[in-house]
């Protein structure tokens, strides 16, 4: 974690070392007799955008919960580089540089700045004593990281709202706060759970742009769950399709679009067109 702290500070955009490979192997999750994920495997190549799609209830969010340590699989393993994530607590996984957003917005009270600084938690060290006594080290750390959080707010288009309470922002902006907060972790792997759900066309386009930029500049790996097929087709390098917890197809967006299994899973709707939700 300490070397990550220094790395995060010194890394310049565009020069980041490639993130490690994220591999999901035969992951199975059961809830009270119900199998939510059944032998799911896929690999996120370093620096790529990997989309997980499928109808509602296909297990996409469960898969994210496994990746971020909120849910422990009954079988299978997730590894990031050489580290197995499946046995780690969520905060340890965060410290390894895996950040995520949530499908329904989960922000905390306070300002955008507060939320973004929460994203810096794993990269900072000020403890209870140092903070209570306002020791110079803790204050300096806070100042430096606040500056970085402001940069990230600018990057995601939240600069003007940096000191606004999150509760007063529009839906799209709050969704962006989540994205910015995840970026504040200086992630190597970013998990985005429906980043544009509920947004209007302009907001969608803006978020897509940000994600594309991030990937180009920071070279991070992105795992994307999204119903907006247009977005998936535009951003993703690879797509894994889940249905009832089972992987039914895998490949480039073009391959997946033509897969008959996928079309059946979407009940005959044209998967390339509208929002499949």
């Amino acid at each position, binding site marked *: 974690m300490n070397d990550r702290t220094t790395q995060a500070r010194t890394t310049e955009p565009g020069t980041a070392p490639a993130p490690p490979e994220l591999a999901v192997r035969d992951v199975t999750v059961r809830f009270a007799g119900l199998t939510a994920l059944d032998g799911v495997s896929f690999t996120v190549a370093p620096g790529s955008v990997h989309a997980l799609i499928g109808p509602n209830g296909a297990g996409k969010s469960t898969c994210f919960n496994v990746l971020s340590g909120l849910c422990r699989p009954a079988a299978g393993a997730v590894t990031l580089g050489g580290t197995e994530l499946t046995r780690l607590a969520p905060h340890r996984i965060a410290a390894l540089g895996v950040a995520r957003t949530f499908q329904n917005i989960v922000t*905390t*009270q306070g300002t955008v700045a507060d939320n973004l600084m929460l994203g810096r938690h*794993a990269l900072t060290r000020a403890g*209870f004593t140092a903070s209570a006594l*306002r020791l110079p080290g803790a204050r300096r750390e806070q100042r430096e990281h606040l500056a970085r959080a402001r940069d990230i707010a600018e990057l995601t288009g939240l600069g003007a709202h940096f*000191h606004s309470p999150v509760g007063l922002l529009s839906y799209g902006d709050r969704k962006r706060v989540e994205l910015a907060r995840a970026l504040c*972790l200086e992630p190597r792997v970013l998990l985005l759970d429906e980043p544009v759900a509920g947004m209007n066309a302009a907001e969608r386009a803006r978020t897509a742009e940000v994600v594309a930029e991030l990937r180009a500049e920071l070279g991070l790996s992105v795992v994307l769950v999204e119903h907006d097929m247009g977005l998936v087709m535009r951003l993703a390098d690879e797509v894994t399709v889940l249905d009832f917890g089972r992987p039914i197809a895998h490949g480039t967006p073009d391959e997946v679009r033509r897969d008959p299994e996928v079309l059946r899973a979407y009940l005959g709707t044209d998967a390339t067109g509208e929002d499949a939700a």
Partner: protein
Amino acid sequence: MSDRIRALLTRRRATLLTVAVLLCLPPFYLDAFWLRIGLFSMAAAIGAVGLALLSGTAGQLSLGHAFFLAVGAYGYTWLAGDPGPGLPTALAVPLAVLMAGLAGGLFSPVAGRVKGIYLGIATLALVFLGHHVLLTAESVTGGFNGRSVPPLSLGGFTFDAGDELTVLGVPFGAEERLWFLGLALFALTWFTARGLLRSRPGRALAALRDSETAAAVMGVDVARHRSAAFVVSSMYAGLAGVLLALAFRRVVPDYFGLVLSVDYLAMIVIGGLGSVAGATAGAVFVTALPLLMTRYADQLPLVAAPGSAEGAVGPTEAARYLYGAAIVLVLLYAPDGLHGLARRARDRLRRRRTPTTDPTTAVPSPPPPAAAARPKEHTP
């Protein structure tokens, strides 16, 4: 921009200085009755700030606060007294606070894993078991009748009515002297608690309250932070306990019961959960109310003087009705308590004074943690 911030800072410093001077005046003008109210309020405020950190900020309900107050009060009395190691009193104060923190730490296997309102029930155990220990461990606690508290001496200066001392023509007894001690400890509490709330640990605790899941995936070690919040809150309670012991000059087990825990909860609820200023206001309200009602019982309608006919509404009862009702009303109608009411009033006033121009100033409630850079303060 930097000029504005500098102007703001100096203005803040000036306000701070004025408040500090004003708080130093009462011992020169008010009699012991009012000073005692102030002293108890300051002690309560220190404890309430601790509970506000735990219950307001971290969302962990505690009904065990009285136990940690007792650890602080009895810890000081035992450490500085006989029977006991008889340490120098100045050393016994920080040690008693550490003892309270240690007691909170020992509870951390529960405090770290039991969350929210359930912790409230678990902490009931502390109050009842603690009370039992205070009654039975007579060699340390003095049993039912308690112990007398040795006065604090700091470098030859003793906080009691002992040797004659006159400052600016005013004779300084125990209350006058303790007032300044209380003030210093309260300032320490204010400084440290605000520091905590506005930095990394404070944000982590607030995140835990709002969403444990979000906090965890942002890298917050959930159990560790819950335990730490409990320890910190216990230490503030311990400090409050020491000050209360010094002010009462005697500690008895029955004071540290469930009622006291509920009083502290009332303070932070009435004040507005999770803010240092709110906890302080709530502490003053809950502490001063019964004392004032006792003093002015004969002038209040519906309240009988203490010790009058049985069944009449005495001042203590009247005060309890009032703040019991206050808890209900605050939570139903003004969930952010006195602190929120004050903030809304201030905002309304300010909005009337300054027509808003900048879109960022249209925000109805300015965010507390960013106070230093609040753009609104300085709109001409």
